[in-house]
């Protein structure tokens, strides 16, 4: 998103457009990255219900992946995941630094 100058934005920090949080990418805040395993996931959707940032992507009632542009890495999805071993594993972002 192109950042605008002080004369180009509403005063007082008002956000005029409803529901535009999707345009604000919070993925860079993450320390731990949730890594989803499609092999072991039982599609119970607990992670989808619990994620505070609506970052569990689903289609037709099944998990399809994780939205890393908005996931803040809180780990709730992994905590809530009922399978053993967890179908979502939290891994340090720095481990992905070379990618």
């Amino acid at each position, binding site marked *: 998103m192109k950042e*605008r100058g002080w004369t180009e934005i509403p005063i*007082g*920090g*008002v*956000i005029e457009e*409803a529901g535009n949080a999707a345009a604000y990418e919070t993925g860079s805040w993450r320390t731990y990255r949730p890594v989803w395993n499609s092999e072991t996931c039982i599609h119970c959707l607990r992670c989808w219900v619990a994620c505070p940032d609506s970052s569990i992507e689903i289609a037709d009632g099944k998990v399809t992946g994780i939205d890393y542009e908005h996931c803040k890495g809180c780990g709730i999805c992994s905590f809530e995941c009922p399978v053993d071993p967890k179908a979502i594993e939290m891994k340090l972002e720095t481990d992905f630094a070379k990618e």
Partner: protein
Amino acid sequence: MTGNDATAEAMRQIAPDVVTCFPITPQTELMHKFAEHVADGDVDTELVLVESEHSAMSAAVGAAAAGARAMTATAANGLALMWEIVYIAASYRLPIVMPVVNRALSGPINIHCDHSDTMGCRDTGWIQLYSENAQEAYDNTLQALRIAEHPDVLLPVMVTFDGFILSHTAEILEGLEDAEVKDWIGTYEAKYSILNTDDPVTIGPLDLQDYYFEHKRQQVEGMRHAPDVIREIGRAYGELCGRSYDLFEAYRLEDAELAVVALGSTCGTTKVVVDELREQGVKAGLLKIRSFRPFPEAEIAEALGNAKAIGVLDRSISFGAPGGPVHKEIKAALYGTGHEIGIVNYIYGLGGRDMSMNDIKTAFAGLEKVAREGTPDDNIRFLGLRGEGGV
């Protein structure tokens, strides 16, 4: 009317949509009076009685964010307690008007007048209008609403007047007719309302490294527009009732060699002293600051340009800084103008210490010496203080 009654009268005539209220001496009678108007059905204001000043300002912010005309009033420690939200009101650009009855900040605890409360607030982003008497407190309150709501400004305004000296002493008030006030303030259409579900907006979201700076710059712009708006509204007010207002008042200043700069009720006393000194052939004058925020530095520097010595009266201390807050602004205003003027700072009246005509004469006598000999080493003086260093 007392200053408190006069301000409550202005509020009755404004009849804000929402008034939030928590009592503190010497503001208590102001809100007491206004609450009576609400109880008597004189106004249809929603009076929100809260449990602290922090809540009073928070509720005013909420009301203003919903598009209401919102007011509250406070003093001293009450202002200190609402501090956090005072900044928020300004940064959200909510045109709240708040009379502040100047009182010394604790401690040691003291309920009498000085300007430490509002001077501490000088960087909060609020416009600050200081009043010389109850009439001005009334007039400033009526003008503050228009200034705050002006689309080029959209900043909250503090109207200050001296605790007890003005808040509790009676003088004759020339009020406007209710209908005149209704016309004067018109109706207010807020640009945004958090309650407008047809056009939903978010007020007060997180604002980090990417946009906070830009929003601060916008506040600077609102403040930059304020001087013209304050002047324009001050002129229009004069056309309405014969009492016009500017950013400051130059009293016998044009040819003055010895100039005193002050704000608040001390200006009235100083005018009497100036008149006396003039009769004795001393070229004395007064610059009374009305708008301390925004501070009209260029105009003030020009108005003081003919003086040979300036005495700046400060009713508060800026600990560890070179002099009081007014003193520093005046020095900064004169910097680079090429005028080599001797400036002395007189800290006075802390905790309600009386500021008599004799004290002001002492200040002028000091200025006479400065005019002859230039800025002395002891250029920060304590007027009316007992013991070493007092004058």
